[in-house]
Structures are given as structure tokens and as C-alpha cells.
């Protein structure tokens, strides 16, 4: 496959990035912040620390995915590396696919390291807290959360690539992916609020419903509560459905990205 050399190159380049180590260190700092916040709450401090630590984990992975996908593609274009690559017997769609696979690999590795950092952090916080009723932490649950977070990161990086190919301004591409990410997180609650409200007109309800079906739903990958509350259960079917949704939607985004890149004037 012609995409593999590009994927390898992108992967190696991203591992050397300051953002990779920088965001991991930032995550350690955020664990300290989680511990500090949990200190001021009455009752189950470990629950609060976990809430914050896992939310920060989710967002750090999202940030890395956005910066890695948009930044790497724009760097290839601005440093003229893309001309060098495309001068080889390589189709443009293979370049896009390779880029995506490289970023996806880096995101997976980043999530894997983050999982260790976060798990070690929350286990340490738990051992330091002196609760009357200890908060049980199930590492397997945190791992399942990490798997979905990793999927979210890869999904998001597909959009990063799409916007990097679509826009000529890096800032615009970054902001667009960020906007899309937050919109995708908000869609489920917005739909829930709008459909249950008496004050929203039927037309607006239809618009929200349409947006709910068409926009990427990032909230599906957010199951942090499952790791925090042991009484919550998630069916294996849920993981299967989310995985299928992720695969189909990511493929669709990649198809559009390759199409746009083939038509783009470099």
C-alpha cells in the first residue's frame, strides 16, 4: 500500500513534536488541579477528582488530535514537503489516507500513555484520600473509557484533516474543528432540551433534529460516568454500535477529504 510510507513518516514526525510530550506533562499538571479541586468538596473526594481527571483526559486527547491533524498537514504544505511526496509515484488519495493513518497512530499512542498517566494519578489520589467509605476504582472501566476516547480522537483527526485540506488558513481550520467538536458534544443535550420544551417552534425542533442526525455525535464517545459510578452499566452492544458509527462516519469524512485534496490547487 502506497499510503504506508506517508503514515510512517507522519507518525514519526508527530512523536518528535513538542505537543506530544507537552500535552502529556500538561495532563500531569491537570491531575494536580483535579486533586486540589477535590480537596474542597465535602464527601466523596475521589469521585470529584475522577470526574475532573477524566474530563481533562478527554479534552487533552481531543486537543492533541486537532493540533496533530491540522498542524501536520499545514506544515507539509508550508514546508513544501507535500510537493516532494507527491513527486513520487503516489496518488493524492494515498497521501491523505497515509496522513490520516499516521495521525491515528499517534493519537492512539498518545491516548495509551495518557491512560497510564491518568490511571496512576487517580489511584494515587485515591490512596491519599481518607474516606469513610472508600471509592472503588475499576481500572478496566477506565481502560474502556480510554478506548472510546481514542476512537473520538481518531474521529476528530479525520475532521482535522478534512478542514486542513478544505481551508487555506490554519487558524480557520483549527477553529472550525474546535467548533465542530463542541457542537458534536452539545447535540444530544440540545436535542433533549429542545424536543421536551413547549416554547420551541416545530420548525426549530426539525432543524435541531436534522442537525442531531447529520452532525458527528462526539458525546457518544464520552462515557466517563461509567468509570466513576460503578452502578452504571454499559451493554457490549453499545460499544459495537459506536464502533460501527465511528468506522462509517470516518470513512465518509476520508472520502470527502481525498476528493477535496485531489481537486485542490497546491
Amino acid at each position, binding site marked *: 500500500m502506497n499510503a504506508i510510507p506517508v503514515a510512517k513518516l507522519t507518525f514519526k514526525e508527530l512523536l518528535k513534536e513538542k505537543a506530544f510530550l507537552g500535552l502529556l506533562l500538561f495532563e500531569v499538571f491537570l491531575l494536580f488541579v483535579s486533586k486540589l479541586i477535590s480537596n474542597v468538596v465535602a464527601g466523596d473526594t475521589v469521585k470529584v477528582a475522577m470526574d475532573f481527571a477524566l474530563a481533562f483526559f478527554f479534552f487533552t486527547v481531543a486537543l492533541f488530535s486537532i493540533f496533530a491533524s491540522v498542524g501536520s498537514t499545514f506544515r507539509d504544505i508550508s514546508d513544501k514537503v507535500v510537493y516532494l511526496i507527491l513527486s513520487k509515484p503516489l496518488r493524492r488519495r494515498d497521501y491523505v489516507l497515509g496522513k490520516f493513518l499516521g495521525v491515528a497512530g499517534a493519537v492512539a499512542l498518545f491516548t495509551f500513555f495518557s491512560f497510564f498517566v491518568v490511571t496512576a494519578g487517580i489511584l494515587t489520589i485515591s490512596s491519599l484520600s481518607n474516606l469513610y467509605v472508600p471509592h472503588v476504582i475499576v481500572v478496566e472501566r477506565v481502560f474502556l473509557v480510554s478506548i472510546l476516547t481514542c476512537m473520538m480522537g481518531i474521529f476528530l483527526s479525520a475532521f482535522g484533516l478534512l478542514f486542513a485540506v478544505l481551508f487555506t488558513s490554519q487558524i480557520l481550520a483549527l477553529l472550525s474543528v474546535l467548533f465542530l467538536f463542541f457542537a458534536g458534544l452539545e447535540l444530544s443535550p440540545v436535542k433533549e432540551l429542545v424536543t421536551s420544551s413547549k416554547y420551541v417552534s416545530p420548525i426549530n425542533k426539525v432543524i435541531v433534529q436534522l442537525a442531531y442526525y447529520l452532525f458527528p455525535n462526539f458525546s457518544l464517545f464520552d462515557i*466517563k460516568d461509567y468509570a466513576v459510578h460503578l452502578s452504571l452499566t454499559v451493554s457490549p452492544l453499545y460499544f459495537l454500535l459506536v464502533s460501527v458509527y465511528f468506522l462509517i462516519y470516518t470513512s465518509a469524512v476520508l472520502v470527502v477529504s481525498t476528493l477535496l485534496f485531489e481537486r485542490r490547487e497546491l
Partner: protein
Amino acid sequence: MKRLLLAFFLIIFSIPFMVKADKMKPRVKELLPVLPYSYSQVLISSPGFKSPAADILFINLCYLTGNDVFNNWKERKFSEEEWERLIENVRVIEKLDPYYFDPLYFLGAYVPWKVYKNRKLLLKINSTLLEGSRYIKDWRLPFLVGFNYFYFMDNKVEGAKYLKIASQMKGAPSYLKLLVPRLYAESGKLDIAIAVTYEELKSAKQESVKRALERRLKALLAIKELDRALSVYRKRYGRCPETLDDLVRSGILKKLPKDPYGGKFYIEKRKCKVWTTSNLRPVSTSSSR
């Protein structure tokens, strides 16, 4: 390097001006420190941070209540409106993170002591706790609902109903099983009290609990027997007897039963009902409530 040092000292030099200006900044004085939060606003403004948002609201709530408890706002305590807002904020937390136990425990165990004169607020607290018990299977939630009913609202029947639910949940202390029949008996529902005690006796596994339930049953059956004799007396003479000894003198009872708790049975004149000085607790440890 010199420029960096210069920049550093310039920033240090600017600090007193910033602090002075910050003190002089015009600020709107808040009339009520407990602000009402809306579920939809918090939900929309915290994408992916639903649970941390619930945590922050709870921290805020604890901080405000702590101030009220330790009288940091020297000029006044929480008003009733603020307590109502506080209850509403717990409802918002509950919606954001339905499995979060601590805010509900705080609401059920602390807030009723502050708002016990307001029945509407007590009912609001109970409905919030019951909503929470749909997600959190902890005996303390129905217990707190029951406690609010029997202690603050003087509704012993409803109280007993929720205590019974609590007593059947995992981790519930064994004394709850005894409290339920006592509340039914105190509210005049003797038949329910006896039936509940029988039921609990059948399922009790601990020997100490079994013995305590048997003693309770014995006392309840004695009250029931006296009550029955009392109604026969009323039918026959058209009035309530002066003392329980009248039941023996009239030949309705051969002798008066003894209270297994060491108390003495007597007639509550107002209702013409039998009760005991032990209040269904061993006399040495019994108290008025």
C-alpha cells in the same frame, strides 16, 4: 537577559497599581448570595463537563452553607427563599449527575433542620430524594424521606412506609426493622404494626434482631388485646374506662398483660386508646422522642 529582567521588574512594579485599581472597581452588590442555576444553562455551558459542573455546583453549595453555619455573613442568615434556591440547585446537580450521592445526603440530612417549618420545602426535599433513589440504591435516601415525614411533618404512616423500604435495602441497620412497627403503632395502625413485625420476624436472620422483634410483637399483641377489651367496655358502658383496672373489674379481662419492655400500659384519655409508658423501648433507655 537585561531586557528580560527589565520586563520582569516592570511587571512587578505594575502589581500595586493593579491591586489598588481592583479594590476600587465598581461592583454590583448581590442581594442574594445563593444564585439560582438552571439545568439547561449549566448543561449547555459545560460540554463534556457535565459531572464536573455538578461537582462545582456542590462545592459552591457547601461553601455557601458553610458560611451560613459559621455565621460569616454577620448581618444575616439564609432566608427561606435562599434555602428554596439551594434545594433547586441540588435538583440541578441531581439532573446533571443522577448517581452523585453526597448532595442528596446533604439535602436530606441537613437542610430539613433549617426549613422544618415550611411543609412545601420539606415535600420538595422528599421528592428530590425519591428521584435520587431511582438511581442510587442506598438505604439512607428512603430513610431520610421517612424521617422527614415522621419527625418534621408528624406523618407517621408515610414515615413508616419509607422506613420499611429503607429497612429492606442492603446495608440498612437492624434497628430500622423495629422502628417501622413502632411508628405504625404510635399512629394507631396497630394491625399494620403487627403484620409488619410478623413479616420482619420471618425474614430476620440475626438472633439479636429476632429476639428484639419477638419482644416488639409481644408488646404489640398486648396493646391489641387491651384495645379490643377497651372497645367491648365502650360498647357496654358507652364511655371510656378511667383506668385499665376497670377492664378486669368489669370481667372483660381476667388480668392485665405485662409490657415486655418494663413499662406500664395506660389509657390515652383523649383518644381512648391504650399506650405504654415504655414507648416500646426498654424503659432504662427510653426517651420522649
